């Protein structure tokens, strides 16, 4: 179960996404929802990609989801699992799966968010098998 920890690159942050990255520092996964059409979108934008409304707002996600697909990168210097996780809120995001046995990762597996420090001073949302 013990994986050596990867060093995560610092994410690029801009004025549209700084709330997301402030959230990860606070241990929260923040999503953007449109107040006009009610749809959540990912990655977060100032303008809703469903209806072009600029009336969008943040909310905290449950942090729960399931693995949509994954690939184990065993040849990497520090092996890791890249994945797409579908959040309970309905959107799917790229992530890494941590605190897992590489051989037991499965499509459909329940996972929960956790956070890892990045180079610099940021925090990155990753997922681990749910208890």
């Amino acid at each position, binding site marked *: 179960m013990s994986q050596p920890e990867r060093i995560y690159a610092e994410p*690029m942050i801009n004025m549209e996404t700084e709330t997301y990255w402030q959230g990860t520092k606070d241990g929260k996964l923040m999503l953007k929802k449109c107040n006009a059409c009610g749809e959540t*979108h990912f990655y977060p934008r100032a303008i809703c990609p469903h209806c072009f409304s600029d009336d969008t707002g943040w909310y905290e996600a449950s942090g729960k989801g399931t693995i949509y697909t*994954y690939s184990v990168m065993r040849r990497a210097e520090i092996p890791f699992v*890249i994945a797409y996780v579908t959040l309970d809120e309905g959107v799917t995001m790229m992530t890494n799966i941590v605190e897992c046995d590489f051989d037991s990762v499965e499509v*459909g597996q329940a996972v929960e968010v956790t956070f890892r420090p990045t180079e610099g001073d940021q925090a990155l949302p990753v997922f681990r098998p749910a208890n």
Partner: protein
Amino acid sequence: MSRSSKAYIAGVYEHPTRKAVDKTIAQLHTEVAIGALKDAGLSKDDVDGYFCDGVAPGLGGLSMAEYMGLDLKYTDSTETGGSSYVVHVGHAMNAIAAGKCSVALITLAGRPRAEGVKSLGARSYGEDLPELGFEAPYSPVVANMYAMAARRHMYEFGTTSEQLAWIKVAASHHAQHNEHAMLRDVVTVEDVVNSPMVADPLHRLDCCVVSDGGGALIVVSPEIAKTLGDRCVKVLGQGEAIKHLNSGRFDLTHTGAVTSGPIAFAEAGVTPDDIDYASIYDSFTITVLETLEDLGFCAKGDGGKFVSDGNLISGSGKLPFNTDGGGLCNNHPGNRGSMTKVIEAVRQLRGEAHPAVQVPDCTLALAHGTGGQISTRMGSATVILGRNDA
């Protein structure tokens, strides 16, 4: 029957180099242009339209037009990754039909081997990419993006590594006859599944080669084609599409071919059953499998069965594909594969493929390009080509 066509491919050229240490990219662009013009029986001064991708040297086509000394009335540098050149064929056809130009030159050149670009390198498309912060820290590379599509396809449809391997096996059967191919050894399903795992579930032999080189196409008006003879090939239909992450609601089991294919087939007035030969972009084995399903050569989810048991091998299979060995065995110039897909389709329709892989009486052919990362942010483009008398 004789189908009408708004444009013809009159000339093609595939650069023979696979490692271009002693040539610049601009030089390679020009060498393939010369080759395709010679093949068409045309000269530089006949060219009035120029098409290149967004990574050709300079700003769009500006620098290359100057370098080659072209006198142009029409240019297009649409960039959709490896699918760009099939996009360009359609755009050239439309420009010709609109009377904007009559002889269109399309070029591709790249030298990733000479430049030492790693095949598994991290993507770097600029810091202003809006999605960058939400992907780059997780270390996506080309191979693991395609691997995740393969994994999901396996989960939903029971596709196996052995079935994917048949795609490489078929490509290798063809590549043995191509003196320029990088990988000419015929491989077995066991060879593929026992090759090192690159990005689970894709093995090394599920991946295409990395090569230098390039290619060029000359697309001309019907009036000019008449003067050039019956080696000209009809452009019967073309379709293109972009598929993306759709604000977080997407699947990895369909490609943009579900959109580009029907547009191309409808314009050509043909169906998948009519196609004698198919060039399918093969950056990875999974690329071919999903594309064949999405183009309608088999039902969604049946791709694994469809490609098995040599069904893609010329001479024995129902759908001969990539008879030059494709990206999986022959070459992948500049990490962009759809140029050579069109070139081999033209060879087949002219009866100029290697005799060992030539499809008898090849009348209708399809070439399909895939660009970007499969099913996430991707370009798809399909072109249907017909023999001069098709």
